[in-house]
Every structure is written in C-alpha cells, then in structure tokens.
C-alpha cells in the first residue's frame, strides 16, 4: 500500500513546503493539495514550491474540477509542473464541490468531467485532441501523460472513472462502501475493454493516531460533514435502490452546511455527525487500530491511503503515522 497526504492551503506557503518535505522523509509517496481557490490559497504555486523542495514525492490536486479552470489551462499547468518535477505530477479531479458551491455554482455533469479527463490526458501527453471542433496540441508537453484520478461516489461518476481514470478517489475509509463503489468502476472498465486491476484505488480520509478516542474523533469529525455534501448530491439524484444505506442514512438529520467552515476542525457543520459515523468514515485510534483498518482497506482493493491532514497537529501526526504505520504497512503482507 502507498501513502499520501492532502493539505488544505489555509496556512502560509512555506508551511505547505515543510509539510511536503516532512511527508517525504516519513515515507509518504504522494503530496496532494485541495483546490478551492476562493476558500484557500491557489494550489499550483504551492505545488511548484513543493516540487522544487522534494525529490521523489508525487504531487497533485485532490481534487480540482473542470469548471473553475478550463481543462486546457489545468493540463498546461500540470504539463509545466511535470517538466519542473521530472514527471511527478498527478491530476485528481471531480465534478466540483466547495470550489463551485462557495460561488453559488453547481458541480459539472459527469459526462463533462469524463470528456475533460480524455482531453487532459491527451494534452499532457503532447497528443492532438479535438475540442469543440478545433484540433489543439501542446507539443512541448513531453513528460506526460499525467495519471488521472477521478473522485466520485455515485454510479455514474464511478462508471466514468472505470472508463477513463488511472485511479479512483474514494473519500472515505469504509471498506464496505469502497467495495460497493468498486463494483461500478470495475464493471465499466471491463465494458470499455480496460483491465480493472490496473486502476489504482485511493481511500482518502483523515486519520488521527491517539489512544484518546474522544479527542481523536473531535479532530476528524468535520470529515463526514464534508462527505455529506456529496451524499446529498447523490440522494438528490439517485433512487434509494441505487445507493448503499450506510452512505445516505446519516445525512437525514443534517440541517445545512456552511462552506466558509469547510474541512475545519471543530466546525458547527459537524454537529450532526455521530461517533459511530466518524469511526466509519475516518480512522481514529492507536497505531494498531490504524493498521487493522488499513488491512481491511487493502483487502477491499485500496492501493493508496491518502490522509486528509487537517487536524491541528499536522507535524506531530505526520511523524507518528510515518514511524508507527507507514513503514510497517509498506513492508508487511496483509494480516489474516
């Protein structure tokens, strides 16, 4: 299993760089960055600095969307960064949540997201692609294509990921829901003539190493509240038969969501989130509990665990995870 961290750029740029270096030193393989340009700092200058300060860490957005920036701009940025970093860039992309909602705009359609993935892959590979009837190319893009990770939860987005993605981003650490999601990804991949086993599977969620479960839960309780935005999108769209109950049941008492406190420890957005749901969506507890859940995720097909590292103790948690979990999991075989 590979490990990554995701940063929320609500702090000064130099701290993002230091956290990226620290992640690399602790054995993490990926450094991801939220992209919500009004709420927080723009990810691309930060990724540039992070790329210059690290050697092997792969870097990318987790996630951007095809509406805030034209997909050709995103492809050009990533191809340029691929040149700077020696081909270490990945594109994490979804339909758009906070980056769109905070401006009163809706996410894009799945069909548009899928088309943009094809365009981004071709452009970062220096290949020709026809966009809106015009053939375009970035012949200077010689370090690509960038691997494309698609974020989604619903049957349509998951099927699109199966057709076009190198990896799928599943924002939760629940092995059962991940298995359910992967059914759609794998079926669509097979139908498209792709090898489903070649698709990477990322579980992206907060983790907090501590024996003090009450404190640990309060550090990550914001996460199921964040996920609830996507779940509300799903239940707005799909009939109940097409959704797993563990995904929609918990949002029934949600009263609303304030994006100005998105992904924020202690936010009122999380008032409706129970301990049980917190434990199900994130990983809390001592290193042994972390390893046990990671084994379950690995058995469900997860190939990368990406820690949403916004918990108020980022440096300490990076070091704890690196020393007590990452190195052990990288070398161990799945536990029985």
């Amino acid at each position, binding site marked *: 299993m590979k490990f990554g961290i995701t940063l929320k750029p609500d702090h000064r740029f130099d701290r993002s760089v230091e956290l990226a270096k620290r992640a690399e030193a602790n054995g993490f393989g990926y450094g991801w960055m939220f992209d919500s340009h009004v709420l927080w700092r723009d990810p691309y200058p930060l990724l540039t600095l992070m790329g210059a300060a690290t050697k092997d860490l792969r870097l990318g957005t987790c996630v951007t969307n095809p509406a805030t920036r034209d997909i050709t701009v995103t492809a050009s940025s990533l191809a340029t960064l691929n040149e700077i970093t020696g081909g270490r860039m990945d594109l994490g992309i979804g339909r758009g949540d906070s980056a769109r909602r905070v401006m*009163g705009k809706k996410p894009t359609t799945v069909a548009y997201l899928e088309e943009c993935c094809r365009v981004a892959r071709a452009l970062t590979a220096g290949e020709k692609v026809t966009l809106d009837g015009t053939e375009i190319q970035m012949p200077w893009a010689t370090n690509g294509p960038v691997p494309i990770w698609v974020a989604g939860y619903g049957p349509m987005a998951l099927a699109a990921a199966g057709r076009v993605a190198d990896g799928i981003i599943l924002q939760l650490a629940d092995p059962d829901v991940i298995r359910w999601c992967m059914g759609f990804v794998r079926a669509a991949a097979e139908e498209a003539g792709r090898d489903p086993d070649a698709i990477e599977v990322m579980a992206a969620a907060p983790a907090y190493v501590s024996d003090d479960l009450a404190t640990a839960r309060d550090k990550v309780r914001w996460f199921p509240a964040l996920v609830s935005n996507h779940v509300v999108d799903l239940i707005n*769209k799909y*009939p109940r038969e097409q959704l797993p109950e563990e995904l929609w049941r918990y949002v029934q*008492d949600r009263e609303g969501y304030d994006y100005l406190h998105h992904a924020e420890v202690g936010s009122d957005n999380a008032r409706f989130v129970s301990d049980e749901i917190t434990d199900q969506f994130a990983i809390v507890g001592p290193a042994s509990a972390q390893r046990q859940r990671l084994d379950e995720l690995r058995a469900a097909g997860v190939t990368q665990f990406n820690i949403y590292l916004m918990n108020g103790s980022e440096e300490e948690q990076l070091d704890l995870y690196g020393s007590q979990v990452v190195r052990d999991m990288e070398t161990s075989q799945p536990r029985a």
Partner: protein
Amino acid sequence: MARVTVVNDNPEFLALVREILEDDRYDTITIDGDRADALDAIRASRPDLLMIDLRMGAEGIHGWDIAQQVRAEPAFDGLPVLICSADAPALKALETDLAGMPHVDSLVKPFSIDELIAAIDSLLAESATR
C-alpha cells in the same frame, strides 16, 4: 396515458427519473428547473401531475412557489403536485402549509422507485375523482 412533468435543476436526475417513469408507462416530460422560462414550459407541457423539487438552482428557487403559481391558474386548478427534496427538515417545515391541501404530496429523497410510483399513482387516482 397520464402525463407527468418533472422539474429539476439536475440533468442527470431528470434522465434517471424519465427512465424510471417511462418504464412504468407514464408520458414523461422533463424540464430544467434552472430555465428562466420554466414556468412557461410547465404550462406548455399540460401535465396531469407535476413532480418538482423543493429547491432548485443556485438561488434556491422554491419548487412549491412555482407549483402554487401553476395551480393558481384556472386551467391547472387542483393539479396534483408531488414535492421532493433531500432536505428532510425543510420538507417537514413545509408540512403545515401542505396539510389539507388537496392533491399535494411530498417525498423525502432518497425515495425508492416503488415509493415514487406509489405516490404518483395515488395522486393521479385521487385527482381522477375531483
């Protein structure tokens, strides 16, 4: 065949509901709730039943407000309306307004396909006796 007009701001939802309802042999018209002329489009569709979301679009257009505007017209007096929403507390808050209102029902999302069909059938049967 009864005609059901579905109004929603999510094109993917509209496509899914059309698939479900046409399977059950309703004549189904879908309308993008974000359209500035959505009200005109509803009128032009001549529905036997209007299925509309409580909130639509970035401005939070109120589906019940639109439904009331349609029902206020003589041609659509007593038109059956099914109001849907994923916002269970908001739908509950509307219950007082809806209480005693003939041929109006609400459905919390995510609804099952059976629940949806049952709600539509029930409203259509009720309105047939009006």
